[in-house]
Structure formats: C-alpha cells, structure tokens
C-alpha cells in the first residue's frame, strides 16, 4: 500500500489533465462520468488504505510515501511526502466519499451549462488539492494544498463570472483568505526557524526542549490559528463564506460546507502536538470557536435566503469543531467534522434540489408546501435537519453532544452554556427553514408552481446515500455512556495520544459518569425546545415572529450585526483611501521617482558602455589585450603579495 | 622563482636589448638621404606594378586548406606505421576508419567541385549577390 498512496491524489489530477486537453468533444455525460470515476477511484483507494491501516497494530498505523526530494536549499529540506495515518485516513475517506457523491449530483445540476467541462476541471482540481492538503506529511505540502483549494474555491465561487456580484464574491473570498494564509505562512517560517524542520513527525521529538506554554510555540499556534480562522470562516474572518454562496450549489456543498472550510479544523488537529504545548492558544481557539458558534447561529435565525441560512449554520458548526479542538478533544472535532460533512453536504444538495425545482428561487418566503412535490428531497432534508439539530439517534447528536460533554468535563462551564444556547438556536433556525420551505402553502408565483418538480435521479440518489450516512454515520463514535465503545476515538487515539497527556481529558478511556447523562439530557431538551418554538412560529403560524421582527434587535441581527458595514467603514474604505494617498504621493512621487532615477542612471551608463562595442575588430583586440594584461597582472599580484 | 626558465628569460632580455642597441646606434650613425628610387618597393629589380594591397582569390585558401588536411594525415601515418607491428588489428582498424573519414571529405570536396580551379557557381546557391567566377575575375 505504501507505494500506492500517490494514486489517491493522482486520479483527480488525471481527471484535470484529461479534461483540460482531451475531452473538448466529449458529451456532457461522458465528461461527468469520467470525472466522477476519477474521484471514485480515489475513494476506492482510500478505502483500501483504511483497510490496510486496520490490518496493522494500532500504534503502527502510519504509512508514509516520499514521492521525491522537493526542495533542498542549504539546510532547508522539504520532501514531497504523503502520510496516511488514522487522522488523514478519516479525512481522505470523508473527502473522497462526499466529493464523489457531489460529482454525481453535479452531472444533473450543471446539465446544460456552457461551462460544464470547466466546472468539472475545477472540481477535480479541488479534490486533488484537498487530498494533497490532508495527505501532506509536512507543513509545506499542506500549504500547497491549502493554497490550491483556496484557488479552486475562488474559481468556483466566481464560476459564473459574467455576473458582477458573483465575481466580486469570489474576490472577497480570495482576499479574506489571503489574510489567513499570511498567518499560516508566518507560522511555517517560525516553525522552520524554531525546530529546523517542517515535517510533522520530526517536530515532535524536537519539542522536548521547550517548556509548556513557551512563548514561541504559543506564537506559532496563534499564527496557525489565524490561517485556520481565514479558511474555516471563524470570527472575525467569516464574512466571505455567506457571500461564497454565489457559486453553484454543489460547490457550496462540497467546498463551503463539507471539505475545504474544515481544513482549518484539520490543520489545528494535525498540529495538536504544538497546541498541547500552548494552553493559552488553546484557550483562544475554544473561545473563538464557541463565540463564532453562537454568533453565527443568531444571524442564521433571521436569514431568508435558503443558502445563507445554511452558510451561517456552517460557520456556527465550524465553531463547534474549534471549540472541541480548544478543549483538547481533537478526535471529537474530527468526528463532528465527518458527521457535519455528511449532513451539511446533504442540506446543501437538498437546497440545491429545491432551487433547481424552484427555477432558481432562493428566498424561503417564496417557497412552502414543497413536501408533496419533492418528496425525496423533503425526506432526506428532514434527516439532515434532525441530525444537525441534535436529535438522538442521528449522527449530529453523537458528535455535538460529545463536544458539549468534553467542554463540560473540561470545566469550561461558560463555553458549555454558550454551546448549549447555540444548539438551541440551531434547532430553531433549521426547523424554521424546514417548515417555511416544505410545509404550509406554496407562496411563490404561478409559473414557479407549475414548474416545480422533483430532481432527476442523478441528484436524488446522492441525496439518499448521504441521508443514510447522516442518519447512521454517528454510530461509529457511539459513546460508552450509551453502551457503545467509541470506535472512532479509539481509531484516532494513536495520532492524538502523544500530545495531550497532561490535559484534563484522559484519552479515550474514561468511566461513565452520571453527570454525562444529565448533560446529554439538557442538550436534547434544548433541541426539542428549539423545534417546538419553530413549530409554533412557522408551522402553526403564531403571531410572535411578526411582532419580534419590529424590534431593534431583530434588525441588528438581520443585518448581520452590521459587520460587513463595519468592515467597510472601518477597514475597506480607510485602506482604499490610504492606498490612494500612497499611490499618488508615495508611489508616484517617492518610489517611482527613485525607480525612474535608478533606471535613468542605468540607461545613462548603458548608453556609455554601449559605445565600447564599436564593431571594429581591431578595437576589440586592443580591449582584449588590455584585459589579458590585467588578468595576468592580478594573478602575479596575488602570487607575490 | 623562475626555475629552469631563468636562462630563457635572460636570453630573451639579452636578445631584445641587443636589437634595441643596434637600432639605436644605427640611427645615430647612418646617413639619412632618401630618394624616390630608394623608397619604392623592392621587387627583384623590376618596377613595382600597382599596389600590394590587392584582393586574392579565396580559392587559394581552399586549396591550401585541403592540402594541409592531407599533409597532417601523413604526419599521423608515419608514427603509426613505425609501431604498427606492436599494435595489431585494432590499430589497423582505427587508422582505416580515420582514412575513410578523410576520404569522405575528399569525396565531398571533389563532388562539390572544389578541386576544379575554375568553378562554375553551384545551382542551388546561385544568387545575384555572388559574382560568377570567370577567368576574367580570377585574374585579380
């Protein structure tokens, strides 16, 4: 197996190359099936990798393949190497499985689009970079994948680039991500200067000489987290994600819900050995995570665009994952990452199906009563909604509850309360979305009503498969308290075991405590409360939502706390103003003056030197003769003095 | 410092110095009475005709070059012939290959017409820029 890891990333790359150069004359179906097959091959290989990992000793589950020596400058050394351990194995399984389903779904969704081939090129390229990101065995390879997925995200958000708004959204995502990437880059530089290596497994033994809480490691962790904040849309760099919904819906499902945005979580989990040495940084991660979870959830309460609701929900759920990382429960974060990938991809694909059926309509106030018209979409959507709301039995319950329990267990009571309230909001806005979209009477136009139809099977089959995964995906991590043995955490244990022995949670094995049941019960009650409230407001059509919407709080939340405006007034405009001043005075005056001065100087020198080249061979010979005398003279000078 | 080359340098200095000394005294002692006959170029007693700065036909060079190539071949062949008995078959083969390569060159030169003194311009390189080589032109 160890020689075949590269095949996992090779197949999507083959897809990119083939589609770029050779499939110009292929039919849509052929292109779609070919691209999907390439990702499917990656999935099969990921499963093979998983099986071969299972066949190994738990502590030896670590396959590394060095592809080639990539960069070697002085003592700096970065091999292009891929690493499959249990952590990256979970990631490649999730990424390739979800990507494969979304590729299939896209064949139906993108049907008839003029950019069909371009779309699949970008999508395959994205899968390639995403797999590279999670498989890289050092920070630099990871960074290449990281930048690559950012590029693909930019290309796909602005996929319909003729629309000014969509192109702008792409640019916004790119620029905000650059801020995060800058932090990540600085972190890599700092890691290199501190440890002299950027290989994950070489850093661990070199950390021995640093005390816990050492300021340089804290700095590294915080810089890494800046990168994670950008990519995973956490406060305050989350602003790009809701706008990124401008891209095609399968892209939102794949990149902006299931995979790319979770790269930040993966990166923090991958760097757990650094974070466990920096409690202060972990604290920051936990607080930012919990804060984002509730902050985004409140905005989600009042959004009317079906994809915007899901976007804020994604931001909020990513907050949960960071909360888990912040309390040292990396395995749980990855667990939630996986279940979230299933149900959030499903939600987005379901919304895509709705938008498809509604001829492009995204406003849930114009929907309603779609349950009978799109039954498959409805039932799968319902499964995902139950999962995200945290109803027992569905995948989201196990992972979210585990996060809240680890938070509570780690004595982070304030964060726990925040998490529970966010869970309440989540249940509320998700059921609000469900009721407004699928229940009640149809509120759209007549032509839309006639046109509403269930989506083709290439779209509904992935929905059904994802619904199954969203329903049962949580049982791999069934906690001991519910009679399971948490296979998931055991599987990941070897990766995370090294780092956090000193932290409060004692690894995978802990006894069942009665208080765990109480904590669990509270989150279930809170979720049911949210559902009940949504039911009263949007199914029974009670009058309180209308009254509330007159208040100032509502307006503030509806306008997303005016964060975009604050950024505009506080950052964007001053930056632009500053740039203008710099451009006019500093750049044109000082820099250009200097540059032009230098250029003029060299031009003058060049004009003078050029005259040496007279064209007369006699002159050349004389000058050469002078050169000969000087060379010999210098040699003799060296010899005698 | 100069090792065994010191006598050579001494010799160079002495020779150069002697020339300078002789020239110096010669210019000091010799009378200086030029006339046109003295200043004219000495050409075995004949009266010089025209300038010596005339263009030679480049054909001379080609013939000379071809001559040199086969001259050098002979230089190679003599030492080879002397030790041939010790070297045996491979040496014979090597020299045979060497001669074949040279003969290829000869054949090439022959076929291209470079062994003819009066050569008509080649058809394929014919152009207005090239003056046709006629006996008239060749006289200069």
């Amino acid at each position: 197996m160890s020689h075949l890891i590269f095949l996992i990333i090779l197949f999507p790359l083959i897809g990119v190359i083939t589609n770029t150069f050779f499939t110009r004359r292929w039919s849509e179906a052929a292109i779609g099936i070919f691209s999907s097959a390439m990702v499917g091959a990656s999935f099969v290989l990921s499963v093979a990798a998983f099986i071969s990992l299972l066949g190994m000793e738990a502590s030896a589950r670590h396959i590394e393949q060095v592809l080639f020596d990539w960069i070697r400058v002085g003592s700096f050394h970065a091999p292009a190497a891929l690493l499959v351990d249990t952590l990256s194995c979970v990631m490649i399984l999730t990424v390739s499985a979800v990507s494969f389903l979304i590729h299939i779904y896209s064949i139906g969704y993108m049907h008839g689009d003029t950019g069909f081939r371009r779309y699949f090129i970008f999508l395959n390229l994205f899968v390639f970079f995403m797999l590279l990101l999670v498989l890289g065995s050092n920070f630099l390879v990871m960074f290449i994948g990281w930048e690559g997925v950012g590029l693909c995200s930019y290309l796909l958000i602005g996929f319909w680039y003729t629309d000014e708004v969509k192109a702008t959204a792409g640019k916004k995502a790119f620029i905000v991500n650059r801020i995060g990437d800058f932090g990540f880059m600085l972190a890599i530089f700092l890691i290199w200067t501190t440890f002299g290596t950027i290989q994950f497994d070489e850093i661990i033994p070199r950390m021995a000489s640093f005390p816990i809480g050492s300021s340089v490691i804290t700095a590294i962790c915080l810089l890494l987290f800046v990168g994670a904040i950008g990519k995973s849309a956490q406060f305050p760099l989350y602003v790009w994600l809701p706008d990124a919904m401008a891209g095609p819906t399968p892209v939102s499902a794949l990149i902006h819900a299931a995979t790319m945005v979770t790269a930040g979580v993966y990166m923090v989990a991958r760097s757990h050995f650094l974070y466990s040495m920096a409690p202060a940084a972990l604290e920051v991660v936990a607080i930012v995570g919990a804060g984002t979870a509730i902050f985004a959830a409140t905005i989600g309460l009042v959004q009317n665009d079906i994809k915007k609701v899901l976007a804020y929900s994604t931001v909020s759920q990513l907050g949960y994952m960071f909360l888990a990382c912040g309390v040292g429960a990396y395995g749980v974060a990855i667990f939630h990452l996986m279940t979230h990938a299933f149900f959030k991809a499903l939600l987005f694909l379901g919304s895509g199906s709705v938008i498809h059926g509604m001829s492009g309509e995204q406003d849930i106030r114009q929907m309603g009563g779609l349950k009978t018209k799109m039954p498959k979409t409805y039932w799968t959507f319902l499964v995902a909604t139950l999962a995200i709301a945290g109803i027992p039995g569905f995948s989201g319950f196990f992972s979210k509850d585990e996060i809240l329990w680890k938070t509570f267990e780690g004595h982070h009571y304030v964060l726990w309360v925040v998490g529970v309230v966010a869970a309440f909001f989540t249940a509320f806005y998700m059921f609000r979305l469900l009721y407004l979209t699928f229940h009640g009477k149809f509120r759209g136009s007549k032509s839309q009503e006639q046109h509403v139809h269930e989506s083709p099977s290439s779209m509904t089959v992935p929905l059904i498969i994802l619904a199954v995964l969203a329903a049962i995906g949580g049982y791999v991590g069934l906690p001991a308290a519910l009679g399971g043995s948490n296979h998931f955490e055991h599987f990941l244990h070897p990766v995370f075991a090294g780092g956090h022995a000193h932290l409060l949670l004692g690894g995978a094995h802990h006894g069942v405590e009665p208080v765990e049941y109480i904590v669990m019960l509270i989150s279930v009650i809170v979720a049911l409360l949210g559902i009940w409230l949504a039911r009263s407001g949007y199914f029974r059509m009670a009058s309180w939502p209308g009254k509330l919407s007159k208040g100032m709080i509502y307006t503030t939340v509806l306008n997303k706390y005016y964060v975009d405006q604050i950024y505009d007034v506080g950052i964007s405009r001053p930056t632009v103003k500053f740039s203008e001043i710099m451009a006019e005075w500093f750049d044109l005056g000082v820099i250009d003056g200097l540059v032009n001065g230098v250029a003029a100087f060299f031009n003058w020198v060049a004009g003078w030197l050029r005259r040496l080249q007279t064209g007369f061979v006699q002159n050349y010979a004389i000058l050469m003769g002078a050169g000969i005398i000087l060379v010999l003279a210098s040699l003799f000078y060296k010899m005698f003095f | 410092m100069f090792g065994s080359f010191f006598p050579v340098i001494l010799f160079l200095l002495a020779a150069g110095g002697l020339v300078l000394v002789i020239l110096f005294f010669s210019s000091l002692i010799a009378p200086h009475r030029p006339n046109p006959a003295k200043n004219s170029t000495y050409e075995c007693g004949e009266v010089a005709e025209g300038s010596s700065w005339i263009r030679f036909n480049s054909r001379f060079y080609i013939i000379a070059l071809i001559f040199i190539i086969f001259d050098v071949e002979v230089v190679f062949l003599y030492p080879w012939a002397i030790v041939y008995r010790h070297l045996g078959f491979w040496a014979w083969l090597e020299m045979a290959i060497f001669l074949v390569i040279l003969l290829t060159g000869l054949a090439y030169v022959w076929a291209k017409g470079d062994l003819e003194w009066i050569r008509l311009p080649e058809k394929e390189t014919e152009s207005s820029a090239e003056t046709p080589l006629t006996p008239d032109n060749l006289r200069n």
Partner: protein
Amino acid sequence: MDSYAAQIVGILPEILLIVTAIFAILLDLLSKKEERSWVATISLVGFIGSGIVSVFLWNRVGFVFSGMVAADNFTAVFRILFCFIGAITVLVSPEYLRERKIRLGEYYPILLITVFAMMVMVSAADLLLFFLGLETMSIALYVLACLDRRDSRSTEAALKYFILGAFSTAFLLYGIALIYAQTGSTSYAEIMTALIVLPLEVVTVAGVGLLLIGFAFKVAAVPFHFWSPDVYQGAPTPITAFMSVGPKAAAFVALIRVFTISLESLADIWTGAVFVIAVLTMTLGNVVALRQQNIKRMLAYSSIAHAGYLLVGIVAGGPRAIAATSFYLVAYALMNLGAFTVAMLMNRRGEGDYQLDDYRGAGFAHPLLGVTMAIFMFSLAGIPPTAGFFGKLYLFSAAVEKGYILLVVIAVLNSAVAAYYYLRIIVLMYMTRAEHEMAAVPSFGGYTLTLVVTSVLVLLIGSLPGGLLNLLLAALP
C-alpha cells in the same frame, strides 16, 4: 579485447554522432535534391540515439583510454543536455533555412560535429583532448555563424569571431604549454597532484592566467566578450540559440573540470581575477542589455550576464557550487532555447528585424507565443516557480555558504536590473496595443513542440527542483 570494447562503449555517444554526421554528408552528396530533407530527420535521429545511449551509460563507465576520457556521470548529464540542445536546434532549423533560402547540405553535419566536439570537451580528462574538442567546436562554429553567406552581417560577424577566436586560442594553447612545461603532464589528475607537490612558479601562474583568458573568451566573459553580441546578431537565429547555450555550457563544464578541480590548489591565485571578471561580466551584460532594441542583441547581452552569474559558481567552488552551476546550465539552456524560438517565430511574420517593438500586443494576438515567452522571461529574470529561480537560488546560496557575500549582493542587484528588460517584453506583449494588425505567425510543428517541451520543463524544474539537483549531486566528478 573485452577491455577495448568497454573503452569504445565509453565514447559510444560521440561515435554515434560522428557516424551520423558522415552519413548525413554522404546522403546530402549522393541523393537527389528533393530527398535532402531526410538529412534533418537523420540528424534528429542521431541526436536522440546518442542521447539515449548516454542515458544508458549512467553509472556504467569511468575513465577510459588511459585516463584521457572521463566517461563519468557528470559527462553523461551534459552529453544528454547537448543532445537535447542539438535536437531542439534541428527541430527549429528546417523552416528557418527554407525561408532564408540557405540550402546548404553542410548545415546538419556541421551541427552534429559541433555537438560531438562539445561532448569531447566535457568528457576530456586531459588538456590536449580538451583542446582538440575546443578547436573542432570553434572551427565548426565559425562556419555555422556565416552560413547565411549572402548576409554581409553574418559573414562579418563570423570573420570577427574567427579572428578573435584564433587570438584567444593562441593564449589558451600557450597556457597549456606552460602548464605542461611545469608539471610534465597534460592530464587533469596528474596536473592536480603535481601542483600540490611543486613549488609555486611564475611559469605556472602565467599558464593558469593564459588558460583563464582562453576560457573567458569562450564563455564570453568581460572583457573578452566583444565577439558575442555581433556574432549572436549576425548568425542564423537557430545557430544563435544553439551557440548561446551549447558551447557556453561545454566551456563551463571544462572550466569546472580544469579550474575548480585540477587547479583547485591555486584557487587563492585565480579566484580574485574570476571574481572581478564575474562582477564585470554580469554588470556589463545587464546594463547594456537595458538599451537594446533588437531582441537577438538583447539576448546576447543577457547571455553575457548569465555567464557572469555562472562564474559566481566557479568562484565559490566545492561540490554544492558545482552542482548549482550545472543546474543553472541546464535551466539556462531550456529557457534560452525557448526564448530564441519565440523570437524566431515572431520574426516569421515577415516584418521588422527582431525588433522589440514587434512584441507590442503580441500576447493577445499569439496566445501560445505570449504565454511561453512570459514563462521564459520570468525564468530568465529568476522569478519562481521557474527553473531560473532555483538556478539562481542554488548558485547564490552556494556562494553565500563559502562566504562570498559581496559577490552575491552584486549578483542579486544585477538580477534586479535584469528583471527590468526581461519584464519589459512581457509588458510590451500584454500591456501595450499593437500599432497595426498582427500578421498570423506561420507556425510549424517543430516550433510548437520546442516551445511546449521547453516551457513545460522550465516550469517542471521550477516546481520540482529537488530531483534535478539530486541527480546532479550524484553525478559530481
């Protein structure tokens, strides 16, 4: 006899080229006119075959012919590079020759002989053999430079090249003679050991100095560079492309073998002179290139400047610098061949005479030419992710390691100056409008293939430089 066969195997790539050359001459002579296009094909096959044989000789042979020929891995690398350069030159030549109505059968055989001579130069482990290779190469180049006989500039350039070349060869030969006089040998290895034992003599130093002058001429280092702008401009463009990379690389490899290895014990004496020559060469090349309006002339001065960078590697010395210099030679060959090919194609539109102004707006009118030219210019300027960037990085970091900070600072400043004229072409191509409608570029498979191969390799080496560097480190002499 077995050992004799093994020795022959050591020089098999050279033999293949010579056999091909002779075959090509005879074919040209004996066949009818319309069949002569086969000569190009056969030459191409010869280059490819010789290159493949060179690949197979990797790790197979060492010194053969009583230590005269070093058929080691270092040689193998450059044999492959030279075959590549030769093959590319053949690919871009037929159309050019047809257009210029140069119908000389000698063209391809002489090209084969030149590459053969370059191989002899790099595989020589003896000053005499090296000199033979150098002379064969030089004479063949004099002929190639003036193939366009009706173009007065071409013949003028070739004559200048010949006169100055003969001038410098005399110095080189005299240097060899003096070193032989002092050490009693012309073998690199024996010279090396002899110089360590022998006391330092005036004669030795004079010999080293004269050798250095001869080399400086061949690599067109200041102030022995005067021939190169005139020759590069006057020679047929495929030959200019060839000359700017092939013979230069051959001379540098010989320079590495002679100076950084054989004469290493005298490094104290010659390093200072090479240091100054390097500084002068890169500075003059870059500064004068700023003012050029003719792309061939600009690339000629750029080539001088690159020789200056390469001399940094000679000054630094040691395995890492040698590997870096070799890396740079490979990178430079790829990007410069590519740039010249674009220049050739741009000129095929039938207007102008390699003027930079022809490039106005060309990026949009000719997408492939624009993109590849941009890649080559970025690479020549040393901007990542191109081969040129890593070439400079390795070269300069090797020099820094040896403590030549000042030299590297000057070289980096020079790179900044150089970026101006390289990027100006990109600016012209993409940020200015054409003054008149662009004529279509009559293209030809060989050109497209060359552009694609060279640009892809430039990018490939630029993104995965480790492979090539490790290969070169493994091949060090």
